[in-house]
């Protein structure tokens, strides 16, 4: 197992700067959108923008795109488990308080 998986590809620094710029623009967007008071869709848009930002961080800063498939699959399983827990909880909450 010695030296296994040593990364050979070095990313470009301008990619990081571009990702950072996108993250700042998305932050400004989420603040601006919150001022519109979209009521019902406010949470959905906020979570959608936050997830886009997380996606950028995971893909580029944590360079998941260059990792082996097994790591991507593991992340998918972890997020799937979390989604399942949230959905199962809300399947109770939604029907209890109505």
């Amino acid at each position: 197992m010695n030296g296994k998986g040593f990364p050979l590809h070095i990313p470009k620094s301008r990619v990081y700067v571009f990702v950072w710029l996108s993250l700042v623009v998305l932050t400004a967007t989420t603040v601006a959108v919150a001022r519109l008071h979209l009521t019902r869709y406010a949470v959905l848009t906020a979570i959608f923008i936050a997830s886009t930002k997380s996606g950028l961080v995971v893909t580029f800063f944590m360079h998941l795109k260059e990792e082996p498939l097994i790591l991507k699959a593991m992340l998918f399983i972890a997020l799937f488990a979390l989604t399942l827990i949230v959905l199962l909880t809300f399947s109770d909450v939604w029907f209890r308080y109505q």
Partner: protein
Amino acid sequence: MSEPKEIAVRHRVDYTGAKMGMWIFLFTEVLFFGGLFLLYSVFRSKYTLAFHDSAKELDIFLGTANTVILLTSSMMMALSILFVRKGEKASSILCQGITIFLGLVFLCNKYIEWSAHIRHGIYPDSPLLLQMSRGKIIFFSLYYVMTGLHGLHVLIGVCVISGTLLFTARGKIYRDDFVKLENTGLYWHFVDIVWIYLFPLFYLIT
């Protein structure tokens, strides 16, 4: 100059294994914060109005500033790894230094925010808070627990990056062996992601 891969073989570094270990740790952290986010969602769906009212107490400007600060620190952390891999030790140390500095600025802002709430009499178990509605009590409890635990993660991150900075300076983290810095980076980016969700959910729901 020999190939980096050969040197890694000689140094017996298993990059895949080391990084996988770190990711598995981060998955436990995902579920740890995930549980708190779940609690937040359930109570927010029950006490929607109280949550919206309470969020007005929070300073959107400081929250936005802290978001930009953490995002910038994340980029600096990514750049520090890039510089180490190019063999530019001084630049890497500078970037790690900036990351630590930004982490400390984030914590200073947290201190300012929390002191303002405490001055207004809003802190866990305070007489003023206990007179408020149940929804508001729950909002501020979650606020203190979640931003507090996140702040603790930032503090731990700052300590660990101080360690990697020393390692880089002493040449223990270098072009052919940087997995310690790599894993510290993964942790720091994860802490950034937690804040990416905390910020809109607590500050932007007014």
